[in-house]
């Protein structure tokens, strides 16, 4: 299975990402829990790009999402031409802190790492490529 989705760097496009994941979930007969988790990881990754990759831009840029299922592994690749940002090097959130010491944000990348089995990043020809892999166990 191979699928592709192109969206603009606009938060209103998030619904398309959710529909994309749901379609893949239906095709691969994934559980609703897994579909929700994958949807969450992709939302966090896409929101990061939309929020931070294009700080000075007026027009719309594209974000491409590729999905491939092969050897029991679902691989999503997210590409954009925004500012270079490697989420794999972001500090890990400490989820053991008390409410007093907890920062209010910073959980997006943590959730991606928790949900996915492998997260890798490449910067190739002015393009960010984030790869998210999830082993599918039937």
């Amino acid at each position, binding site marked *: 299975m191979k699928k592709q989705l192109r969206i603009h760097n606009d*938060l*209103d496009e*998030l*619904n398309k990402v*959710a529909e994309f994941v749901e379609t893949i979930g239906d095709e691969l007969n994934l559980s*609703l*829990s897994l579909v*929700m*988790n994958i*949807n*969450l990881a992709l*939302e*966090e990754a896409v*929101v990061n790009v939309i929020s931070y990759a294009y700080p000075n831009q007026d027009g719309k840029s594209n974000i491409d999402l590729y999905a491939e299922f092969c050897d029991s592994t679902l691989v999503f690749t997210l590409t954009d031409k925004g500012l270079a940002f490697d989420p794999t090097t972001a500090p890990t*959130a400490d*989820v*053991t*802190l*008390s*409410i*007093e010491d*907890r920062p*209010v*944000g910073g*959980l*997006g990348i*943590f*959730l991606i790492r*928790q*949900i996915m089995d492998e997260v890798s990043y490449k910067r190739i020809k002015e393009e960010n490529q984030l790869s998210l892999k999830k082993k599918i166990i039937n």
Partner: protein
Amino acid sequence: MGTTVNAQDSVIRVIVSGRLDTNTVKEFEAALQPLLVKDKADIVLDCADMTYISSSGLRLFIVLLKAVKANKGTLTIENMQSDVRSIFDMTGFSSLFTIL
């Protein structure tokens, strides 16, 4: 996504429904604003119909809990769906919040 706030007796009941994602979080944030400054409020978040939460929604749960603690109130979460609960477990929220 929908948020309804009902104040009955001394308890403020907030009913959260649908998807709490980066797009819908603004409505939830607006509904919570008056609660962030209430003194000694007893707040219940009824999450029976909340089907999804992303980090932007989780952020507001933390903001609300910090405010409630500072204002010497209480915050209880009720009827959370198991998939959403698993996100609370994953992020350590289950040990921060009172979840019934």
